[in-house]
C-alpha cells in the first residue's frame, strides 16, 4: 500500500515536471531501473579485438563477455571465472612451453542478430563455442584487423606467424582474399598455440612462461565473436561495419548507437546469468565476500548477496562535452553517478569528507587510488639532460626531481586528490610499498641547488653563456588549462635557477618530435592494462625504447642491470624474491631519475542515494551489472530539486514595459 502510494506520488511529480522545466528524459522512463551515465568522447570502435580506450570499453564491457573476470569487491584484484568454468592453471609441457586449458560453460548464447540468418536461414542466434574464442584470437593476429595487443598475445605459439601467412596469401592470391573470413583463417591455419580440443574446450600454448596472459582473458580482446557478424558487417557497399555493429554474448545488448549523442544498452535475457541462476556462476551472482570495510560500507547487503545479476533493465549513456553542465545535471538528479569536477570541489568535499550540503542530498562518496601513474620524463638520449651527460646530468635530473612538489601540484590542480608518487608502481599493484620514501621525491630546494652547483650549474647559471641554463619542456597540449599546469612545473624549476621554456605544440607535432627524438623533458601517464608490476616496469625497459623501437619507453631509458632484472622478474609469481628484485629495480630508478614520478591519480566518485552496491574499480572493467537503482526515490528527488525559478521572467517583462511605454508615449506626443 505504501509502495503504491509512493509510486503514484512519484508519477504525479514526474508529470508536473515534464510539462515545464529541465527534465532531459521522456516521462515514461522515469520509473524504470535505468542507469544514466555521461560520456565525453564518442567510442572509436566497438570491435572488441581493437578497442583500447576507456570509453570504448565502457560499452564493449557489457556487450561482450569474457572467459575470466575480476572479483567485484576483493582487492587486490582477483581473477574469477566468467564464461569459463574455472580459472585455468599453468601446465608445463615437455618441450618447456606452457599451456592453459579453458573449459567453457554450456548454453552460452550470442545476442540475436540478422547476421546469423544470412548464413543459416531461420536462426537468429547460436551458442558460443571454443572455436569462437579461437576465432577471436586469430583475429588479433590478422593484420587487417589492426589489433593493438598483438605484442602481448603474440606470446601464444605461432600466432604472429599465422598473421604473416594470412597477409602473404591475401597479397599473392586475390581469390583467397575474397573467401569468407572463417574459411581464410581455416586455410591459413592451424596455429600451434591455439587448439580447439572439443566444442567447449580450448588450449592455449605459450612459448615462454607469461602468467599475465590470464589477465588478457579478462579483457574484451579475447571475447568470442561470431564469424557470421564479421562476414556480414564488413563496411563495404553500404553494409555496416563490425566496429559499429557489435554482436556479443554479454549481459547487455546494444539497442541504440548514436555515438555522438546517445548510447543505449538493454538487458540481455539470453545471458547465462539470467538463463541459469541456479549455477550461481561467480561472474553472474552478487558476491558474498569482499575486501575489508565492504560490509561496513553496505556492499554485502543480504538483500543482494547471492542474487543473480544484472539488476538494471537499461543503461543510457548521454554525450556531455563540458564538465560543468555534466556536474550540474548530476546535482539535478539526471545522472546517477559523477566524478568530482575540480571547480566544484570545495562545494562537494570539505576536509576530505562530503560536505553537509551533499550529504543532505543523500549523495555518497567513494574514493579510490587508480592503478595509474603520471610522470615527468627526461629524454635520456638528450645531450644535456640525458645519459651521455654522465654524472653531471644525473645530478641535474636529481635536482629537478627535488624541485617538483607533487603534493602542491595536486593541491592546486586536483584539489589534493591523488598520492605523490615515489616509484613507477602505483597502489593496488604488487610491489607497491606505502612506507617507501624516494629521497629525490621529497621537495627540497636547498638540496636541489646544492646538487646543481655540484653539477657545474651554480645558481642555475650555465657557465658557457653566463645565463640561466635553458631547457625545453615539450608538451602536446595547447589548451589554457593545461598551460597552467605546465607553468607550475616550470615555475618550480625556475626557483632553482633553471630557465625551462614550455614548447607547446599540437599533440601531433609533439608526437612527431618524440619520433624524431627531438625533445628534452615531457610529461606522460600510464594506466594499467592489468594489475601486475610488469605492466609498469616495462615502461623503462630498453627493448621498449621510444626512439629506437617505437615502444612506450619514452624516456629512452637503458640500463643493462635494470633490463636483466626485468627479464627475471616478469614471469615470476608474486613471491618475496620477486619483491626483492623489484626493490633493486626501484633503487636503480631512484638514482638515475629517468622519470620524476609525479602522482598516482585518485578518483572521487559521487553516487546518488538511489544507487546501490557502488564500488569504483579503477581498472576499466564493467561494473554496472552489480548496480541497482531505486527509481521511485529518484523520481521524487528529481521533482523536488528542479522547480524552476520564474520570478526573473516576470521582473524582466515588467522592466521592459516600464522602459518602453513612457518612451513611446513621449515620442507620439512629440510627433503631434
Amino acid at each position: 500500500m505504501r509502495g503504491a502510494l509512493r509510486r503514484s506520488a512519484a508519477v504525479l511529480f514526474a508529470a508536473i515536471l515534464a510539462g515545464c522545466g529541465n527534465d532531459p528524459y521522456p516521462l515514461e522512463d522515469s520509473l524504470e531501473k535505468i542507469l544514466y551515465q555521461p560520456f565525453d568522447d564518442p567510442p572509436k570502435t566497438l570491435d572488441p579485438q581493437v578497442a583500447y580506450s576507456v570509453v570504448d570499453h565502457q560499452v564493449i564491457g557489457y556487450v561482450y563477455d569474457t572467459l575470466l573476470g575480476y572479483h567485484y569487491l576483493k582487492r587486490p584484484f582477483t581473477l574469477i571465472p566468467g564464461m569459463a568454468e574455472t580459472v585455468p592453471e599453468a601446465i608445463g609441457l615437455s618441450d618447456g612451453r606452457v599451456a592453459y586449458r579453458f573449459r567453457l560453460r554450456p548454453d552460452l548464447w550470442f545476442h540475436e542478430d540478422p547476421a546469423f540468418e544470412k548464413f543459416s536461414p531461420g536462426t537468429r542466434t547460436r551458442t558460443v563455442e571454443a572455436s569462437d574464442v579461437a576465432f577471436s584470437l586469430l583475429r588479433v593476429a590478422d593484420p587487417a584487423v589492426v589489433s593493438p595487443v598483438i605484442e602481448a598475445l603474440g606470446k601464444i605459439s605461432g600466432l604472429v606467424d599465422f598473421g604473416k601467412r594470412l597477409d602473404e596469401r591475401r597479397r599473392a592470391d586475390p581469390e583467397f582474399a575474397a573467401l569468407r573470413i572463417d574459411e581464410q583463417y581455416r586455410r591459413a591455419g592451424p596455429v600451434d598455440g591455439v587448439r580447439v580440443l572439443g566444442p567447449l574446450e580450448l588450449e592455449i600454448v605459450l612459448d615462454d612462461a607469461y602468467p599475465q596472459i590470464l589477465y588478457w582473458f579478462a579483457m574484451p580482446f579475447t571475447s568470442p565473436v561470431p564469424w557470421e557478424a564479421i562476414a556480414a558487417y564488413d563496411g563495404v557497399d553500404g553494409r555496416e561495419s563490425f566496429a559499429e555493429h557489435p554482436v556479443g554474448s554479454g549481459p547487455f545488448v546494444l539497442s541504440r548507437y548514436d555515438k555522438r549523442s546517445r548510447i543505449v544498452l538493454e538487458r540481455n535475457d539470453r545471458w547465462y546469468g539470467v538463463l541459469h541462476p541456479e549455477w550461481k556462476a561467480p561472474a553472474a551472482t552478487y558476491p558474498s565476500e569482499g575486501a575489508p570495510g565492504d560490509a561496513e560500507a553496505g556492499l554485502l547487503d543480504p538483500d543482494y548477496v547471492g542474487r543473480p545479476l544484472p539488476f538494471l533493465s537499461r543503461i543510457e549513456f548521454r554525450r556531455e562535452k563540458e564538465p560543468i553542465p555534466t556536474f550540474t545535471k548530476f546535482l539535478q538528479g539526471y545522472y546517477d553517478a559523477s566524478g568530482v569536477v575540480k571547480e566544484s570541489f570545495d562545494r562537494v568535499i570539505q576536509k576530505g569528507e562530503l560536505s553537509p550540503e551533499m550529504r543532505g542530498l543523500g549523495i555518497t562518496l567513494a574514493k579510490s587510488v587508480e592503478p595509474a601513474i603520471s610522470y615527468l620524463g627526461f629524454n635520456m638520449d638528450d645531450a644535456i639532460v640525458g645519459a651521455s651527460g654522465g654524472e653531471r646530468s644525473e645530478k641535474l635530473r636529481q635536482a629537478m626531481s627535488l624541485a617538483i612538489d607533487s603534493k602542491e601540484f595536486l593541491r592546486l590542480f586536483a584539489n589534493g586528490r591523488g598520492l605523490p608518487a615515489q616509484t613507477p608502481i602505483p597502489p593496488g599493484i604488487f610491489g607497491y610499498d606505502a612506507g617507501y620514501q624516494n629521497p629525490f621525491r621529497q621537495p627540497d630546494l636547498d638540496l636541489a641547488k646544492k646538487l646543481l652547483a655540484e653539477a657545474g650549474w651554480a645558481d642555475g647559471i650555465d657557465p658557457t653563456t653566463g645565463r640561466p641554463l635553458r631547457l625545453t619542456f615539450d608538451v602536446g597540449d595547447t589548451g589554457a588549462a593545461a598551460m597552467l599546469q605546465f607553468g607550475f612545473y616550470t615555475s618550480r624549476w625556475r626557483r632553482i635557477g633553471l630557465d625551462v621554456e614550455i614548447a607547446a605544440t599540437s599533440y601531433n607535432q609533439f608526437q612527431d618530435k618524440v619520433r624524431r627524438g627531438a625533445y628534452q623533458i615531457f610529461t606522460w601517464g600510464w594506466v594499467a592494462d592489468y594489475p601486475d608490476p610488469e605492466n609498469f616496469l616495462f615502461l623503462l625497459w630498453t627493448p621498449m625504447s621510444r626512439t629506437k623501437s617505437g615502444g612506450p619507453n619514452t624516456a629512452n631509458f637503458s640500463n643493462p642491470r635494470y633490463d636483466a632484472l626485468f627479464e627475471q622478474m616478469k614471469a615470476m609469481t608474486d613471491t618475496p624474491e620477486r619483491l626483492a628484485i623489484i626493490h633493486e629495480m626501484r633503487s636503480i630508478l631512484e638514482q638515475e631519475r629517468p622519470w620524476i614520478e609525479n602522482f598516482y591519480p585518485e578518483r572521487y566518485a559521487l553516487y546518488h542515494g538511489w544507487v546501490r552496491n557502488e564500488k569504483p574499480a579503477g581498472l576499466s572493467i564493467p561494473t554496472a551489472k552489480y548496480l541497482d537503482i531505486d527509481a521511485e526515490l529518484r523520481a521524487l528527488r528529481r521533482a523536488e530539486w528542479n522547480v524552476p525559478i520564474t520570478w526573473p521572467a516576470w521582473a524582466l517583462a515588467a522592466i521592459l514595459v516600464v522602459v518602453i511605454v513612457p518612451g513611446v508615449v513621449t515620442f507620439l506626443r512629440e510627433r503631434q
Partner: protein
Amino acid sequence: MLAYLVRRLAGGAVTIVGVLLFLFVLFFLVATPEDVARKAVGEKAPPEVLEQWIAAHGYDKPRFWNPDDPADTMLAEHFRRMLTFDFGSSDADDVPISKRLREGAGPSLALSVPLFVLGLLIGIPLALLVAFFRETYIDRVGLVISVLLMSVSALLYIIGGQYVLGKLLRWFPISGFDPSPEVLPRFLALPLLVGLVAGLGGGIRFDRTVFVEETSKDYVRTARAKGAGEARIMLRHVLRNGLIPILTNVVLQIPFLFTGSILLESFFGIPGLGSITVDAIQANDFATLRTMVFIGSLLFVLGQILTDVSYTLADPRVRLE
C-alpha cells in the same frame, strides 16, 4: 541568359577546384599520414600497427606522381573521391562519412532553421521600428544597444546563458539533445535564445541601415508629399523595397544552415554537423574535416549562383555582365 549561366557555373567549378587544391595542400602536404594514424590507432599501439593502418587507409600512395599508374596517386584519389561524393570513411573510427553527414544534418537543421527564421522575424521588425523612429532617442538607444550586443564575445553569451538560465533558474536543460519530438523543444530553447541574442545586434544594425537608406529615396519623398502616413510609408514602401537587399544577404546564408553552428552545437551538445567538425578537429580526423570543408564550400558556391541567377531574373535592371 544561358551564356551567363554557363559562365557562372564555370566560375563555380573553377572555385571548387581551387578549394580542393587548397585542401590537398593543407591535409596531404602539411599534415602527414603518421599524425592521423597515431591518433587513430591510439597511444599504446606498436609501430607495425601504425604502418598497417596507413596502408589500409591508402595513405601510403605516392602524392603526385606514380610511374606505374598515373591515376593511382593521393592527389587523383582526393579529387576523384570528393567530386563523386564518395567520401570514404572517417580516419578516427572508420564510419562512412556519408552516414555521419546524414546523421548530423537533422540536428543541425533542427537548430539552425528556427534560429534563422526567428532571427528574421524578430530582427527585421525591430530594425524597421528603429528606422521608423530614426533621428530620435529610440534610434540612438537602439543603435547603441545593437553595438553593445555585437561587442560581447559569443563565448560569454553561451557561458552566461547556461549559468543563469540553466543552472540558477532551472528553466531549461543546460545542454543535451534528443530527437524525439516530446523533449526536443526543451533542448532547443536555450541554444535558440542564446543564438538569437548573439545575432540580433548585427542584424538590426545592418537592416536599419538599409531601411534608413530607403527612406531618403525619391519615391518615399513623393509618397510623403502626397500625404501618406509615416507608418504606411514604412510598411508599404520602405519595408518592401528594403527587403530585396536584406533577402539577398539572407539567401546567401541558407547554405550554411546545413553546416550548423560550431560554437552553439559544441557547447550545447547538439550532435549536428558543427559538432562533428569540432570532434574531427580534436580527433585529427582529417578525412571528415576535409569533407566538411568541401561540402561547406560547395553549398556556398551553389547558393551564390542561385542567388545571382534569381536576382537577375527578378530584376531586369541588373545587367548580365
